[in-house]
């Protein structure tokens, strides 16, 4: 397979990259030096190798000088390896006879001494020239892409991505952990800055998901296992029992009225525990699917904390359901496998736990609320039907809204959660509208960088909402003056006025920041993704590949990638759907040929490699006592190559001769 070096004819090109490389590395000197190396037929320097004329230069030389190896010294291969391979390929050469040298990120951008940098560039060029002589022609394999898509998480991101794909005729599996889709957006009252009702714009999309022929919706479900690779994933999905047959339940909710619990007495998670529900319930009126569910934790039919039947319940819900027979106490957890080609992860966020900032008094003072609680409080379908009434029954006359709780804070979360300024102002507007109270916003900076956002801030100022610049020190019931008695006192340094203020209020709203989901690390491992330092899923490139992950075929959308508002989430979900569609419509994926392979005659059958493979690409054939590698699964990490005691595992593009030639080029000074 290794071609003899006698007929090797190398073309070498060093790129100035404008001033990026040229100002530090003496490019003509590097080109001149490379001319003297073995097998080199042409050696040139050029201002921009990646430009069309740069590529044409290579192609012309290939034809004119019968070149069969090309080396370009320029930027990172991540940026332009594809470009040059394509150019080489167009000139009729196998693209793997091309080798790239990074003298920008590895040399000119990180060194200031021009002489030493030029020496380093020479050494790297020499290594590549020696290496490329040992290269072989390799073939890019094509693997078909399964046309179905899995979308994980059915908040607004997952919903939008699923609908986009389904409307384009793709089959979508939408998996949601909660009993209804809708995510956080379903809990919001209005949306900023237009103040249109969140439910009015979201619920039509929710019911479209529920009825769409191309969408298979699995609520109460979680992906527990993922196998395969881009184009050919197998996902295992586990579903918790609802104790109600989704196909038979009509959503009439007669069972809820007839439950043996006459009063709703269990905290209602959808209403942020401000309201109550029964053991059999529907999360909210527009829940999708329109199906009730039973909470086995509190339903009398089950022994507390188990799924065994207690026999203490009269099962009036079953009577109410009657002929429909939808209630099924025998349901158990189920698991199923699906095959898909691409996956969109849209698992969302959790809000910051305000107990971590005890100085703001949440849990100590009943009239301190989180923003999400207030969303439910101002919502017409919320626990108070939109009446803003405090836990002590009073209507607030003064309300303080504290921004950046769990954001921009070195003690908790350092990042800006992006949405809090705007939703705080939205809540300020709604609370003022509902109560006529004096509203005080305590902010560090107002960040309103969206379309019509700054105008919304202006509008709030005109409405007479107060803005006090300063991070609140504490919320206390320590009264210093008579007018503070019985109130919550917000102590803050007003950094514009330059002194410490005490603002007595009746209600405090904590504008909590956004955090990665508690199980983001498990999800990351499950889908073989990366997380940034703060725990949000990492995109492949922050600017140019914002919905791609480092695993091909898996895309991310929404707040699981970082805090963002609804418009940005929807845009990103659309982008993720388009990326998935691009793969599906092409119908195949190309696989990098830098995979490992086993020479069977040399394999001793020791099985050392099998457990080492992070991609489970290696299997062991008990009949022949030999290991073999599934090329489709192999990512070319090289772990098995290094570990094989008998040296029977090799890797394309990393053959011993290639690597040793490269090392020789680096180390041997000529």
């Amino acid at each position: 397979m290794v071609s003899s070096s006698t007929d090797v004819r190398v073309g070498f090109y060093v790129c100035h990259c404008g001033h990026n490389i040229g100002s530090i590395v003496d490019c003509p000197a590097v080109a001149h030096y490379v001319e003297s190396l073995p097998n080199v037929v042409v050696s040139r320097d050029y201002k921009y190798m990646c430009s069309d004329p740069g590529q044409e230069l290579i192609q012309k030389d290939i034809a004119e000088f019968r070149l069969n190896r090309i080396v370009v010294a320029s930027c990172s291969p991540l940026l332009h390896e594809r470009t040059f391979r394509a150019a080489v390929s167009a000139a009729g050469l196998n693209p793997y006879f091309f080798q790239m040298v990074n003298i920008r990120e590895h040399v000119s951008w990180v060194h200031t001494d021009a002489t030493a940098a030029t020496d380093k560039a020479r050494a790297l060029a020499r290594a590549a020239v020696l290496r490329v002589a040992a290269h072989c022609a390799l073939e890019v394999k094509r693997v078909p892409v399964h046309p179905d898509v899995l979308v994980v998480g059915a908040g607004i991101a997952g919903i939008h991505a699923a609908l986009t794909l389904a409307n384009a005729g793709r089959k979508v599996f939408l998996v949601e952990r909660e009993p209804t889709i809708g995510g956080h957006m379903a809990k919001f009252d209005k949306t900023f800055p237009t103040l249109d009702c969140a439910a009015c714009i979201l619920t039509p999309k929710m019911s479209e998901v529920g009825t769409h022929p191309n969408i298979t919706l699995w609520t109460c479900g979680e992906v527990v296992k993922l196998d395969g690779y881009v184009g050919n994933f197998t996902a295992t999905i586990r579903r918790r029992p609802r104790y109600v047959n989704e196909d038979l339940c009509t959503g009439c909710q007669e069972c809820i009225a007839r439950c043996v619990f006459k009063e709703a007495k269990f905290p209602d998670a959808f209403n942020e525990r401000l309201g109550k529900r029964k053991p059999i319930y529907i999360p909210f009126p527009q829940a999708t699917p329109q199906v009730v569910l039973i909470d086995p934790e509190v339903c009398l039919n089950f022994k507390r904390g188990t799924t065994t039947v207690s026999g203490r319940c009269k099962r009036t819900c079953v009577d109410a359901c009657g002929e429909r027979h939808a209630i099924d106490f025998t349901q158990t957890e189920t698991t199923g496998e699906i095959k898909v080609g691409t996956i969109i992860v849209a698992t969302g966020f959790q809000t910051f736990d305000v107990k971590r900032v005890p100085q703001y008094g949440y849990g100590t003072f009943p009239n301190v609320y989180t923003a999400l609680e207030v969303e439910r409080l101002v919502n017409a379908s919320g626990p108070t039907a939109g009446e803003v009434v405090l836990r002590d029954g009073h209507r607030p006359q003064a309300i303080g809204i504290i921004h950046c709780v769990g954001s921009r804070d070195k003690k908790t979360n350092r990042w800006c959660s992006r949405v809090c300024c705007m939703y705080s102002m939205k809540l300020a507007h709604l609370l003022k509208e509902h109560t006529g109270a004096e509203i005080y916003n305590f902010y560090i900076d107002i960040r309103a960088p969206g379309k019509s956002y700054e105008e919304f801030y202006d509008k709030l100022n005109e409405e007479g909402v107060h803005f006090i610049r300063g991070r609140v020190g504490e919320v206390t019931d320590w009264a210093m003056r008579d007018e503070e008695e019985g109130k919550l006192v917000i102590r803050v340094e007003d950094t514009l006025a330059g002194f410490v203020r005490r603002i007595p209020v009746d209600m405090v709203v904590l504008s909590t920041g956004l955090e990665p989901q508690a199980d983001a690390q498990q999800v990351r491992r499950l889908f073989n993704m990366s997380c940034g330092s703060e725990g949000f899923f990492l995109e492949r490139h922050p600017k140019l590949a914002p919905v791609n992950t480092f695993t091909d075929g898996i895309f991310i959308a929404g707040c699981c990638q970082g805090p963002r508002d609804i418009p940005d989430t929807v845009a990103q979900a659309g982008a993720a759907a388009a990326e998935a569609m691009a793969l599906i419509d092409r119908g195949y994926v190309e696989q990098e040929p830098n995979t490992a392979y086993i020479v069977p005659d040399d394999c001793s059958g020791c099985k050392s490699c099998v457990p080492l493979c992070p991609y489970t690409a290696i299997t062991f054939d008990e009949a022949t006592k030999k290991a073999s590698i599934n090329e489709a699964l192999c990512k070319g990490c090289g772990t098995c190559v290094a570990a094989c005691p008998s040296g029977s595992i090799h890797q394309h593009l990393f053959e011993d001769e290639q690597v040793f030639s490269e090392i020789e080029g680096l180390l041997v000074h000529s």
Partner: protein
Amino acid sequence: MKFAYFPGCSLKGLGRGYEESLLPVLRHLGVEFEELDDWNCCGATAYMAIDESKACVLAARNLALAERAGLREVLAPCAACYLVLNKTKHYFHDYPAMKLRIDRALAAVKLSYAGETPVRHPLDVLLNDVGLDAIKQRVVRPLKGLKVAPYYGCQIVRPYATFDDQENPVAMDLLLEALGATVVRYPLKTKCCGGSLTGTVPRAGTRMVYILLNEARKRGADCLATVCPLCQFNLDAYHAQVESRYGTPVLPTVYFTQLMGLAFGLPEDQLGLRRAAVRLTWRPPDPAATPAVAPAPAVDAAPS
């Protein structure tokens, strides 16, 4: 493991009540310690304000002495000592220039400091090494009926919150509850006691003392419990000035170790309670004298 007990100037002077209660309590709980031999000023107050490096060198000498004596941890009951010793350790690790100065100064007296010795407050040791369960077992006279406002002051949680929450410390709350006392929710638990303002700008200082005492009184406290000699002094010694300006009622401020001594049934005349200007006269009821259900007491109630 033995602690190097670093009393600092306060516990030998104005804060003697603290030492007099702390040491018996530690012995009672089996905490081994020995007073650091040849200790010097911790470097707090004027040193720190005028020249940090002098303050750190002074503190480092104490830490070096503890290391030389083979004592693994320093026990610093005074909040100011605790802060300066911890700060010195922090500077020693994070600021090479300061480390150099400390090394040179200590070398001149043939000492060296490795920067390893932990500096700990008795509240931390009692809660986390001894443990609340062991403390509860020693309580023979629960502080039943005594309402205490736990007052931490600024220095033991800021900036080095090594064992408790910076904003809302609870270590002493838990300890006092273990002693059977009723803990009053006291939102001013880390507010400034006035520090040296009581001496330099009395109007401002006594106002701060007034705020603390008045709020504790409003919340029904019988006394304040403190961990710091300067807090105790400010809240105790300026009562006359505070009263004449604001007319606040009298409220004693005691060391948390004094309350522990009372609950453990240690001889109360040896707990330094009489050193305060405003004395705590309340004494825990004798449990033997007032049985909850039993018909008649076998022993006469001891006079309290």
